[in-house]
């Protein structure tokens, strides 16, 4: 290990020396803002182009809250429960479910596809179950590709980026190659349900820009050996354990319901305290990062 320490220290010194030679840029917003604008424009081009590509677009066909193919849900009306997929029989989503006409709905929402689409059909199915604000129908997690990363299904504000609205987002945290994947983690978001990120009881606070609620569990506890080690207490008193569907650990309520708490079976009191501490810290970080005085 000392050899490794030595290599790391040398690699650190190399970067430090290099960075010392980088001239101090003037502190201003212009450069970053221009880059964002350019990126937003480029993303717009890509988004339009993506309609004609076999991207896994999600079609708004799951309930009355959706205006039609390719449109986003209106966040104040509940989806039709009759079309919610069974919790044990996930919907199969095909790659042909691309919006036919436009990427913008009357409600102002728009599909945004960023990076590579997540390949897991189950996650696509989960994503169709858009809950109304304040509730969740299904929460899912996995240890991600090759067991190293967390996948999450929840909403987050992708603030300060090319896409700046809140949205239901499906993405993973994988960043570089691993498990045969060399692309960045994919993300698919739709810009509705503004407070969704605050509602999943994962400790995402403020405007929800902090997007790592699930990760706290894994940071402290490690990836659970089985889905049923995670138990969700719902606001109506129901207690649901996780289940594994197509390799994705999840809890499905089958209806819109708030989550009061999450229990981790087998977690020690010390670990639980650490999770709670991290969650609290996450709230604080979120509060700082979501400070309206901070750059969006």
């Amino acid at each position, binding site marked *: *290990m000392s050899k*490794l*320490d030595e*290599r*790391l220290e*040398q*690699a*650190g010194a*190399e*970067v*430090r020396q*290099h*960075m*010392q030679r*980088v001239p*101090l*840029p003037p*502190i201003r*917003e212009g450069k*970053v803002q221009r*880059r964002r604008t350019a*990126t937003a424009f*480029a*993303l717009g*081009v*890509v988004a339009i*182009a993506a309609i004609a590509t076999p991207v896994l677009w999600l079609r708004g066909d799951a309930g009355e809250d959706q205006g039609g193919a390719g449109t986003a849900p209106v966040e104040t009306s509940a989806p039709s429960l009759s079309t919610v997929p069974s919790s044990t029989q996930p919907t199969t989503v095909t790659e042909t479910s691309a919006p036919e006409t436009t990427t913008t709905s009357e409600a102002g929402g728009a599909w945004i596809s*960023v*990076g590579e689409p997540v390949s897991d059909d189950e996650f696509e199915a989960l994503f169709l179950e858009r809950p109304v604000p304040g509730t969740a129908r299904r929460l899912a997690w996995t240890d991600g590709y090759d067991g*190293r*990363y967390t996948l999450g299904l929840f909403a987050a504000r*992708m603030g*300060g980026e*090319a896409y700046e609205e809140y949205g239901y987002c499906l*993405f993973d*945290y994988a*960043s*570089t*190659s*691993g498990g045969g994947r060399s*692309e*960045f*983690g994919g*993300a698919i978001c739709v810009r509705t349900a503004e407070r969704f990120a605050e509602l999943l009881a994962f400790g995402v606070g403020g405007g929800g820009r*902090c*997007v*790592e609620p699930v*990760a706290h569990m894994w*940071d*402290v506890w490690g990836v659970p050996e089985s889905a049923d080690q995670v138990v969700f207490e719902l606001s109506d008193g129901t207690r649901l354990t996780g289940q594994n569907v197509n390799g994705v650990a999840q809890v499905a309520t089958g209806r819109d319901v708030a989550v009061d708490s999450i229990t981790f079976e087998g977690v020690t009191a010390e670990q639980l305290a*650490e999770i709670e*501490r*991290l969650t609290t*810290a*996450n709230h*604080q*970080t979120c509060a700082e990062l979501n400070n309206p*005085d*901070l*750059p969006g």
Partner: protein
Amino acid sequence: MGEADGPPADAVVFREDFQAFYGREFSSVAGLAYVLLGSHSGAEDLAQEAFLAALRNWERVCGFDDPGAWVRRVVANRSVSWFRRRAAEAKALMRLGRSDGQAVEIEAEARALWDEVRRLPRRQAQAIALHYLDQRRIPEIGLILGLSENTVKTHLQRGREALARRLDKELG
């Protein structure tokens, strides 16, 4: 701008304080961003974003025991979403036939090692970057990442073990 339109005297002092902080800390924060992102231009932008955040909140941030820790936390947190943004940017730019044209002059072996670090789970990578690049002690890393010292130790240890395994494998 005429003198009458300028900021009050105390604001001038405040700005100078920030500039000193910025000048002192920028290279190391940009280094951290580079190691976490693997992109030179991205690192500069991310570092600037973090310092802009500090500037906008300087009255509060400068009162912290270690304002540099606050900036590093912003970098660590935003580096995660930055990956997605950069992925999207890269794709967009590729489709538009452009690139950011930034050449990274860091020596290949060091670059390869940091590439491996980035493949670690996020917290492990951040802990290793803060320890070996930023030369931060464990309590400082805990402060920056919002983790307990024991958790930092665990991330460091697991990260080093994983790196050692990969490097052993690489060398046959």
